[in-house]
């Protein structure tokens, strides 16, 4: 069950030029959250920008602190406002929202595939996989350039093997994450042992979903969408899905998603 509550900023760190890690306190949200879910955060004082912003739950901090974290990148006015919030500020926060990731069967190896700020969704999943005694995941992480990579420390500390790709080659292989995925998925018998968990920009989701389909690997996609309400009432956030002879069907990313099986959606 989601809650709408003013969450206090208890910590706020700048990770690099435009990435920030925000720690919020809201015991009800922290307790209810599952990996892959998100919150809607108020990011203004007046009426502009009007709508709240969806943000994945990066981690729920251990213990009874009732704290959870958001990793975000400043891309526009709402996130710029967020970056200006000091410790002690209270932000209206609605969550946890949406369906999280479905956990893989016990023997399956999870491959986390992240593009850019998509990385924000994975730490919570890594911790959840560990807690539920799933196989250890591997992370395949692409970004434009070295400076756009964030949260690597978390994955190292958790001993998650990380393979990097940057468009400018400043670290890891030069190019897109697909260059790293292709070899992983090349052997059909190995591919059948994997499940992909993907979050990133739409072209990346499309490319990865296509690779997974070819290899026969199950694949879950965490989608983004314009989300006016986050709770399923505006019908604004829909994604096109396979339909019937009357045309495509539409499903709400906020409530039926944000995580879908790749086969459920038409990107």
């Amino acid at each position, binding site marked *: 069950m989601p809650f709408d509550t003013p969450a206090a900023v208890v910590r706020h760190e700048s990770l690099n030029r435009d990435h920030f890690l925000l720690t919020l306190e809201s015991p009800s949200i922290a307790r209810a959250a599952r990996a892959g879910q998100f919150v809607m955060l108020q990011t203004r004082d007046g009426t502009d920008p009007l709508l709240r912003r969806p943000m994945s739950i990066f981690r729920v901090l251990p213990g009874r602190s009732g704290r959870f974290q958001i990793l975000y990148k400043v891309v526009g006015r709402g996130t710029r406002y967020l970056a200006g919030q000091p410790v002690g500020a209270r932000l209206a926060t609605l969550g946890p929202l949406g369906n999280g990731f479905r956990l893989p069967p016990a023997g399956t190896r999870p491959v986390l595939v992240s593009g850019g700020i998509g990385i924000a969704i994975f730490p919570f999943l890594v911790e959840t996989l560990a807690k539920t005694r799933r196989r250890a995941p591997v992370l395949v992480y692409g970004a434009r350039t070295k400076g756009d990579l964030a949260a690597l420390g978390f994955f190292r500390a958790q001993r998650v093997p990380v393979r990097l790709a940057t468009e400018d080659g400043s670290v890891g292989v030069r190019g897109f994450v697909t260059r790293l995925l292709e070899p992983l998925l090349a052997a059909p018998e190995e591919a059948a042992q994997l499940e992909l968990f993907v979050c990133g920009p739409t072209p990346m989701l499309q490319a990865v979903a296509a690779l997974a389909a070819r290899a026969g690997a199950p694949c879950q996609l965490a989608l983004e969408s314009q989300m006016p*309400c986050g*709770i399923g*009432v*505006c*019908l604004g956030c829909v994604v096109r899905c396979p339909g019937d002879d009357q045309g495509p069907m539409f499903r709400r990313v906020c409530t039926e998603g944000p995580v879908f099986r790749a086969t459920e959606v038409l990107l």
Partner: protein
Amino acid sequence: MKRSRGGATDLSVQLGPLRLKNPIVAASGTFGYGTEFLPYLKLADLGGFVTKGLSLLPRRGNAPPRTCETPSGMLNAIGLANVGVEAFLDEKLPALRGCGTAVIANVFGETREEYVAVARRLNGAPDLHAIELNLSCPNTEKGGIAFGVSPPVIREVVAAVRRAAPGLPLIVKLTPNITDIAVAGRAARDGGADMLSLVNTFLGMAVDLRARRPVLDNVVGGLSGPAIKPLALYMVQRVYREVGLPIMGMGGISGAEDALEFMVAGSAAVQVGTANFFDPTASVRMVRDIDAWCRREGIRAVRELTGTLQFPHGAPPAPCAG
């Protein structure tokens, strides 16, 4: 009008045949079918709510992108996606039994016959308190021009629905995309409307400069939110003075003061739309804040406020820009 502190405010309002426990009603398309808000509020704390627009058959709506944020507002082109009137009666309405607030079904059609068929199906439904006709829908028989911009068409549709659903209070919801909204209001009155609600969204567009394409797949969308509040307030004031039916005003209402301004301008009750998106408890907080405001101001019954706007020089002069 001052009175001593204490003593509850009478928040109830009466709009023709419809009595509401308070003047705050959640608007169509922004409150789902009601149950979606149960985690955040008690429906019984509201004056009422209006369902998403219902058509005869289920509709899937437009392709995405369906919404776009604009300065202090948003555009939507949902395409009137809804479960259809049968599923509403079978699944949605029963879930609202005993919810303690007025349930109002929003109705639309692409033809006059569709309006009538939906209204007839709703007539006599248990626990349904009123229907609201959305006239902003394109009339497929008239080349896609909205029903709500032609006075004879309005009169006809309203009269036909009136006959099809004699048992239900009839709210007619006006489109603001018209030269003089009072003309539409009079046509709805003449067709037999019990009350009016206004305004629906304003036609607008956003452009994706990089792609040289409209942002919305549907190209055109409806503007709602605080940006439109001054326009809606003007229209409510005008319809109040020109038509003489009870009004549910709306357009950008986000807090108690907005709601009270609409009442002063002539609304008997108000609807809260887009604010439900950015603040899911906005509607019930408004109820509380209106109560507190009335206590402070010494107002015993909130309905006393309706239409109390005083004009400095008698009636307003001819509107003029610049």
